[in-house]
């Protein structure tokens, strides 16, 4: 199911070069199948929640929703295929470089509020399909809003340093010792679903703590507590069965009958409730197999 990590591709990504396998697709018309698969990738990657200003009845994917973080307020951009205000002029390579290297077509660094730190693991096919889907959506003319960031975060050039410190580009490699379900779950959680962006604690400069994957944090990206989703018996979700997890990702119901609120409700509404049962089961199986960690 997974391509082995191509070390050459990884190296090229590290060097900031674009070595995208599906380059030939730029000019080719995307197939209907690719568009359909891309719609699924969009759900699994949770693009809608941040790129749609639902609160102000914004058009899907047209951006503008305020994203308050400890580093300032971000306004995710318009990713509809509008030529002037959206990404209508983007090639599949542009999308690949944005999602997997955190760089705009003009070479500028993106702030990691855009979770390329996770998307970097995306498979070539998923990027190509997502591009096909995005280009097939109705274009919406809506100019991007500048982020509201205090000094020194306003200096985009500093992001190059941040990325050198915290960003590890590279495709999802998988674990050959584990079965296909586990690997699919790992890919969905770590790359597409970017679960760690909220559920993994971060250091002072916003780098994810690699020693505490998915162990939760007292102060998440929006300043609120984000739960530990490792199978730790007391502080994680060790008492959840896999069926509890899949049911939660489908419906938003906790095992005790309460419903998810806040950011997770959006993740479920816009994302995981649209996945197929096999993918939700893969996520549950993978989470179940994580090292149990205490905290936050």
């Amino acid at each position, binding site marked *: 199911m997974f391509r082995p990590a191509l070390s050459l591709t990884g190296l090229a990504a590290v060097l900031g070069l674009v070595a995208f396998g599906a380059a030939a697709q730029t000019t080719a018309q995307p197939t209907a199948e690719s568009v359909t698969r891309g719609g699924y990738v969009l759900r699994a990657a949770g693009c809608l929640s941040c790129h749609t200003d639902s609160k102000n009845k914004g058009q899907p994917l047209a951006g503008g929703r305020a994203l308050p973080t400890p580093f300032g307020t971000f306004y995710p951009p318009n990713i509809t295929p509008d030529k002037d205000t959206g990404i209508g002029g983007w090639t599949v390579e542009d999308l690949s470089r944005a999602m997997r290297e955190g760089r705009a077509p003009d070479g500028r660094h993106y702030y990691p509020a855009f979770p390329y730190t996770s998307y970097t693991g995306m498979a070539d096919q998923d990027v190509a399909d997502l591009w096909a889907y995005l280009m097939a959506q109705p274009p919406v003319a809506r100019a991007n809003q500048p982020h509201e960031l205090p000094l020194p975060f306003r200096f985009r050039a500093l992001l190059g340093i941040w990325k050198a410190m915290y960003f590890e580009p590279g495709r999802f490699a998988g674990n050959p010792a584990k079965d296909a379900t586990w690997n699919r779950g790992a890919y969905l959680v770590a790359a597409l679903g970017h679960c760690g962006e909220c559920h993994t604690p971060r250091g002072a400069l916003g780098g994810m703590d690699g020693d505490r994957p998915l162990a939760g944090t007292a102060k998440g990206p929006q300043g*609120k*507590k984000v739960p530990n989703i490792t199978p730790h018996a007391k502080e994680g979700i060790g008492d959840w069965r896999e*069926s*509890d997890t899949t*049911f939660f990702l*489908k*419906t*938003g*119901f906790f*095992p*005790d*009958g*309460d*419903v*998810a*609120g*806040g950011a997770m*409700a959006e993740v479920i*509404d816009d994302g995981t*409730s649209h996945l197929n049962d096999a993918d939700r089961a893969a996520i549950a199986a993978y989470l179940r197999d994580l090292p149990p960690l205490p905290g936050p």
Partner: protein
Amino acid sequence: MRKITLAIAASLLFGAASPAFAADEPENMIKYRKAVMSAIGGHTGAIAGVVKGEVSFVGHVEAHARGINEMSKLITQLFPTGTDNGAFKDTRALPAIWQDRAKFDAAAQALQDESAKLIEVAQGGDAGAIGAQLQNVGKACGSCHKPFRAEKK
């Protein structure tokens, strides 16, 4: 005649015609409200067990759906002014409830409507259809919790 006059005066004074929650201690009010919410959660949790296939009591779902529906009719009475999480620490009820009461009441009505549909679907006995409607019930819960309930600390 005098009795009737007294009764009217009393009802004007104490609001006896409407639920007399103003007279209840806010702490007790909050405790009661949480018990009602837990009752709803208990029923949805029980239905979830059926939908997940953990238990085979498909025939019980209607009773649980009725439980949710009955409780949902009480919700708007459970939030007297001043019982928000700013004034009391034992509640997650946000002041937004009283700032946009119409929206809050509409959200409570949505739970009544969706749980009424769940009763109908439950009578069909199809676990798949029950699961789908339970999802709509969950959305109704969420559409009220999202704007009106603080996240857990």
